[in-house]
């Protein structure tokens, strides 16, 4: 069963949802989850294409998941640390880099 087009469409929808989430949401945790969503949308594309171009795509997925796991660890740690400092994870209130 050829489901490439559908897979890609689904991936695009997921990715767009992730992007929109990153752009519109204020909560750091939700933005973080949207980033994960975008990564998984990409993973889906890799998987879909690996059917035609060999197992390299699947290897990439493993790498992406590894990095995502590491990123989750670091990212969540940072978010917790920010929360401890400022009692909030709302990104609108976190703008120390303002020029």
């Amino acid at each position, binding site marked *: 069963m050829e489901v490439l087009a559908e897979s890609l469409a689904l991936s695009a929808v997921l990715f767009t949802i992730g*992007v929109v989430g*990153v*752009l519109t949401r*204020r909560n750091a945790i939700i*933005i973080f989850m949207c980033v994960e969503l975008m990564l998984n949308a990409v993973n889906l594309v890799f998987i879909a294409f690996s059917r035609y171009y060999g197992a390299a795509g699947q290897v990439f997925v493993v790498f992406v998941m590894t990095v995502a796991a590491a990123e989750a660890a670091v990212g969540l740690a940072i978010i917790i640390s920010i929360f401890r400092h400022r009692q909030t994870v709302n*990104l*609108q209130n*976190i*703008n*120390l*880099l*303002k*020029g």
Partner: protein
Amino acid sequence: MLLQIAAEAHPLAGTVADWMWLLPILPLLGFVINGSLALAAAVKLGPADPGNHQGAEGAEAAETAETAEMAHTESAGAHGDDHHPVKRHKYAGIVSIIGPLVLGLSFLLAFAIFQQMRSLPDMEAPFIQNYFSWMPAGDLQIDASFQLDQLSMVMVLIITGVGALIHLFSVGYMRDDPGYPRYFAYLNLFVFFMLVLVLGSNYPVLFVGWEGVGLCSYLLIGFWFSEKANADAGKKAFIVNRIGDFGFLVAMFLLFDNFGKLDFAGVNEAVTALPIGTALVTAICLFMFLGCAGKSAQIPLYVWLPDAMAGPTPVSALIHAATMVTAGVYLIARSNLLFALSPVASLTVALVGAVTAIFAATIGLKQWDIKKVLAYSTVSQLGYMFVGVGVGAYTAGVFHLMTHAFFKALLFLGSGSVIYALHAAYHRTHNHDDAQDMRNMGGLKQFLPITCILMWVATLAIAGIPPLSGFFSKDEILGAAYMHAGHSTLADASLFGISGSTILYLVWVLGVASALLTAIYMTRMMIYTFHGPNRTGEAERPHLTEAPWVMTGPLVILAVLSAVGGWFNLPAIIPLGPPGILEHWLHPVVGRAEAIAAGPAVETVHSVTTELWLIGLAVTVAILGMAYAAFRLKPEGLVPKAQSPEERGFERVLANKYFVDEGYDRVIVNPTYQISRNVLWRGIDAGLIDGLLVNGSSALARAFGWVGSKVQTGAVGTYAWVLVGGVLAVLGAVTLR
């Protein structure tokens, strides 16, 4: 010493003339030694400027220094010669020996070389010594080389001879000056540069000397620099001379551009083939004359010379009367062939000289400062010299240069002796009157009898009373102007559409008129200074004494020279001795040019009668002038300067020097100042460069930075939007391409 004899075949080679490089080196050595002593003293004791008498060891010295300091602050407005601290410089002894000694040695060497030259039967070519290649740049080959010929020999003898006498005089005059070694260092350096000027064998070497003497003139005019007026006078001299130097430089550029040569021999060779009156040679000569007008104080650049009297009086005698200011005359005499080939330039020189002569003479009529009278007299006499070289009588010009060096140096040193006496008297009585104003003098004959007699000799000489030197030289110049007006190459040419003949007659009339004025103002000066009642004041009178012999001695020698200087070039018509010695002597240098200027020889109507008539006229004019001054002037009616009324009418115009300085201020100095201030400084420098370019570019950078900093909101959302926008833009650009 890198010494190569260039002209092996020259008759002077292998004789004492081989040592001619020593002529300028001796004064240079004096400069180095005296300058080091001045510096050594300054390093130990602090700067030896006239206002500073610190560093005097011992309590009694400190006390005298204090009184001198008081005198200083009180006499701030008085004249430059009012500086006499009490304590001698610690190195004064050795400096008094070295300063005049190097000049004396230089003079002896010059005299030995002169004797050697005289023993040669006929020396046509100059003796050139080539030391090293100074500026080898492509086609431009300039050697550092000296040239000795009859003209430079005369100049060297005048410079070292008169210079040595003036150095000797200075030993007395500057005796107590705190800047004593510095003074002699400058004076030695001046003589060095002056000798380079007259010995240089090409225009650039001459120019080095030319600029060097300008520098020393500046240093010595502003010698008492702690008074602003003196420092300003130095700057004025320097700046006015730069205008002239511009002309000289352009003349050199033109010479090199067109002839490819800058040495005298090469240029003379190159122009030989040219016809008379080419535009190129005229341009070169006129630019060169601009340089001469600056250095020799001719209209319109004469204004610096009267102000230059701010320097010590021996400096005025040496630099601003006898030697440096005659450099312009020397330059024209040196470039005689060029000027002879350009009648227009020659007529300009003669006309400017004549106008300057009468202009300065009229100003001299109403000056009260004894040195100012002599300064304007110098300007006037320099005008005479330019008439001489302008009408093509180069020998006459150089002859007057020589006699003028004698009698004007004598006059200046005499006035120095008067000022010295008056100043010493004022110093004793703590009076702060002007020691140079003739209204404060009068009747000095009984106090300074030797100076009075000697200055009368010089006065008679400059007025043109036979048989003193000035009579012969002046008569020769006027005679040449008159003769050439009748028939010569110059008379056939024209300037501004006026025939050369008319101009030369005008020059002659102006010359005779200035001779009359010269006799009047000189007699006036003598009467006001030495005759009539004494106006110095009761307290000062017993302190007036003759200067020491170290000062009067040089005066005596100069007086003898002023009296007999005419014998160096007697006219054939006066049978007092061998005629035309100088003319014969200078013939190898200027003979060809004089022949060109005079034009083809024809049997002229000017006969012995004309010549006698001219001489008679000159004598009559001189006697008339002196008699007029003697009978009209009433020294009894004079009152000291402080009580003198203001002059009125034309007298006021003359006393204020025709308001030329004020005019220059208004027409040149002020506009330049205003333009510099408002346009160049406020507009260009502060506005354009500082404002727009420097501050503008920094403001631009800051504006960009401000915009950039505003982009950094610090909110992650914004960055994310920008990032997505960027990605979309890149993707869009790639896919929609």
